[in-house]
């Protein structure tokens, strides 16, 4: 009986959220506080993503195949002041960008992942390796013995570059969104979703390329002709890897398989950003702490004021509050992705299109409703 009622309540929830999406609403409840939190946090996220993006592209383009890339977080500017700031930890935590990159690399999916297994990629990589190690017979000898090792490094560099280019676009969208909000053009959560969706659609076909140089010679590891595009080949795998599957965090949650906390179908095992528990943020070994730590430097005043007023600890638990807002904002990005990838416009009047949409939405919602969305919406302050 319990099982039946649980199933029924979940199917009711799915229907409720389908109706909500068809109506043009977002997964996240629309409220003034949610709007302030989402726009404010996306502004600081945009600033951080800008820096992450620059660094990922810098690493991909200049630090590839380096045995000890000691200064890879310095973006080419190495001086005593920057080293001092780095040691003092007064810096952005680019490690988080690498966590996300590794998450995407691990989970794969999309055209980028598929292209990295093609003969074209292998051939271009081989050319690059020959040029890079022209005067290094030891490495070339090792490459002969272990032929998969160095190409795998270049696959990883391709992800550095791919994620860097993806975040370049997302950063601009989020900062433009904030500017638009400041001008009074964004008034609700659905407005936020629409803005993000428009940004995604505008850049959907933007090519993702990776063409590192050795000296003056360029090596098109991922040429434009490969047809790798922003939305389907980096955006969708990113959402899958980071929002649903998570980055390879260690020690955050223990799952008990015997208590059925791990589904039989690994594809249904979700532990990404939408599912994350914000409470352990700040603890050791919890990588999202790094992102929250970075975002706290760029919070707009109105959001900082809200946090100070909202919590009994003022700024004492800022990183958890940022994480809660961040999770809210990610539900808006997810809504935009769900809307953008739908087979037909969600507000269509056509019955067949509606049925197709519903089938598509059920697939998403069956996963999304396992996330923190219900809890987050329950906490929404009108």
């Amino acid at each position, binding site marked *: 009986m319990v099982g039946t009622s649980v199933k029924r309540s979940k199917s009711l929830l799915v229907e409720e959220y389908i109706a909500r999406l068809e109506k043009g609403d977002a997964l996240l409840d629309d409220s003034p506080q949610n709007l302030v939190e989402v726009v404010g946090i996306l502004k600081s996220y945009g600033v951080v993503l800008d820096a992450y993006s620059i660094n990922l592209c810098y690493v991909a383009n200049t630090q590839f195949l380096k045995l000890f890339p000691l200064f890879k977080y310095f973006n080419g500017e190495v001086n005593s002041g920057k080293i001092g700031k780095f040691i003092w930890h007064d810096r952005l935590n680019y490690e988080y960008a690498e966590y996300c990159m590794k998450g995407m690399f691990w989970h794969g999916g999309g055209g980028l992942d598929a292209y990295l297994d093609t003969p074209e990629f292998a051939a271009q990589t081989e050319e690059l390796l020959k040029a890079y190690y022209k005067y290094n017979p030891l490495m070339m000898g090792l490459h002969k013995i272990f032929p998969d090792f160095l190409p795998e490094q270049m696959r990883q560099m391709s992800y550095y570059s791919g994620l860097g280019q993806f975040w370049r676009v997302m950063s601009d969208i989020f900062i433009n969104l904030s500017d638009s909000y400041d001008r009074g053009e964004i008034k609700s959560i659905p407005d936020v979703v629409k803005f993000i969706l428009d940004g995604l659609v505008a850049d959907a076909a933007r090519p993702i390329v990776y063409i590192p140089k050795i000296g003056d010679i360029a090596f098109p590891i991922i040429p434009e002709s490969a047809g790798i595009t922003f939305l389907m080949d980096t955006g969708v795998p990113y959402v899958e890897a980071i929002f649903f599957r998570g980055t390879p965090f260690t020690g955050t949650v223990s799952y008990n398989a015997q208590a059925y906390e791990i589904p039989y179908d690994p594809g249904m095992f979700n532990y990404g950003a939408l599912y994350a*528990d914000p*409470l*352990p*943020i*700040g*603890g050791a070994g919890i990588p999202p702490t790094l992102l929250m730590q970075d975002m706290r430097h760029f919070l707009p005043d109105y959001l900082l004021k809200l946090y100070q007023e909202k*919590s*009994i*600890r*003022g700024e*004492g*638990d*800022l*990183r*958890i509050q940022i994480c809660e807002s961040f999770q809210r904002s990610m539900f808006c990005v997810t809504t935009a992705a769900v809307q953008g990838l739908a087979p037909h416009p969600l507000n269509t009047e056509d019955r067949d299109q509606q049925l197709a949409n519903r089938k598509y939405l059920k697939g998403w919602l069956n996963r999304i409703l396992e996330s923190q969305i219900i809890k987050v919406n329950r906490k929404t302050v009108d």
Partner: protein
Amino acid sequence: MLSALILIPLVSAAIIGLTPLSGKNPRNFAIVAAVVALAINIALGLQFDFQQEGIQFAENIPWIEWIGLNYHIGIDGLSFPLVLLNSLLTLIAIFATSRTIQRPRLYYGMLFLLSAGAVGAFLAQDLLLFFLFYELEIVPLYFLIAIWGGKRRGYAAMKFLLYTALSGILVLASFLGLVWLTGETTFDYAILRSHTLPLASQLWLLTPLLIGVFIKIPIFPFHTWLPDAHVEASTPISVLLAGVLLKLGTYALLRFGVGLFLEGWVYLAPWMAILAGISALYGASCAIAQKDMKKVVAYSSIAHMAYILLAASATTRLSMTAAVFQMVSHGLISAFLFLLVGMVYKKTGSRDVDYLRGLLNPERGLPVTGGLMILGVMASSGLPGMVGFISEFLVFRGSFPIFPIPTLMCLVGTGLTAVYFLLVINKVFFGRLTESLSQLPPVEWREHAPAFVLLLLIVAFGIKPDWVTHWSEVQAIALLTGG
């Protein structure tokens, strides 16, 4: 000068309780008075000759001569550390008291009365005077538990009163018997100590004294009042109770048990050592089973106080020094732990180890409290570098050659300390923060200031133990040699 240590808290209690001079909230006045008392104590320490046997700064004023009572006080290496501990913990207890406590004048008045009783008992060189101070501290402590205690404060306060009153009666009976059997007309400690009674007489007098102080320490099976008193008492009172008042019992053991009845003491020592071993194991075992953090610390206190009995029973030069060291060590560590448990309770409203979880959460938990608690547990478990290690090492090293089995029992008890405290730490501080505790108020640094002071001393005496041993070594050994 020595009388100032008694008069300052007594007069402060009178000013706060009976006059409007200290204002509506006498907290600041109380702090000033406690600081002055502590400063005098330190000044006294600077003038004190620790290499000299016997009492110093003695004051002897005839009081009620027809019953043999004189106001005879003095300080020696045995009482100095405890008097200093009392001054320090009184100040810390005042700091740890809520600024918005109900009926503050009565509260602070009682607190100073308690402090005066304890310091008077430590300084008294007259058995009857000791008894008066010993009894004096019962009354304010009863009220401090009964008025500002927890839900079952009435029960706990009454139980405390009955037990400790019985303790006082037994101690008094022993003193009266001693005066009667020696044929003296005075209760003066030095005079009575110069007599040597036959063994049988000593045993007749020592037995009620021992039972009396076993209740006070407390030693199993006379301990049942203590967990209730600790659980119901507010944090500052638990600090004083564990840090100072229990030491009245162990002080009486050494001063009167060993000092006056050495032959009888040696005769009963094997049985006392076994009782110490049992008490240590019993306290540790009970601590493992507790669900209330404060009860864990309370039972731990019972186990650790038993080490003092073990060391005193062994009556070696090293073990006597160790007994005094363990008193100081336990006073600091237990006060520290009670402060931290009190902080957890103040912020979460609970001490239930089955309810509290993840308090080390760096953003919304009590990470500093948790960190300090871990250090406190390390100190209590006897980890090197802290005062607990030195005191327990000295106790076991000094006692093992005389009573190997009871020492091993106590060693097992010390091993169990790590078990029960780590269970508490693991449950309360690690894991995910309990959802209903995710909006805890923050702990301000000044709230932790008293704990940091104690931690500093715990570490300092752990690294430089001779700072404590040289206070008491000469006098502790003198108890055995009749000096």
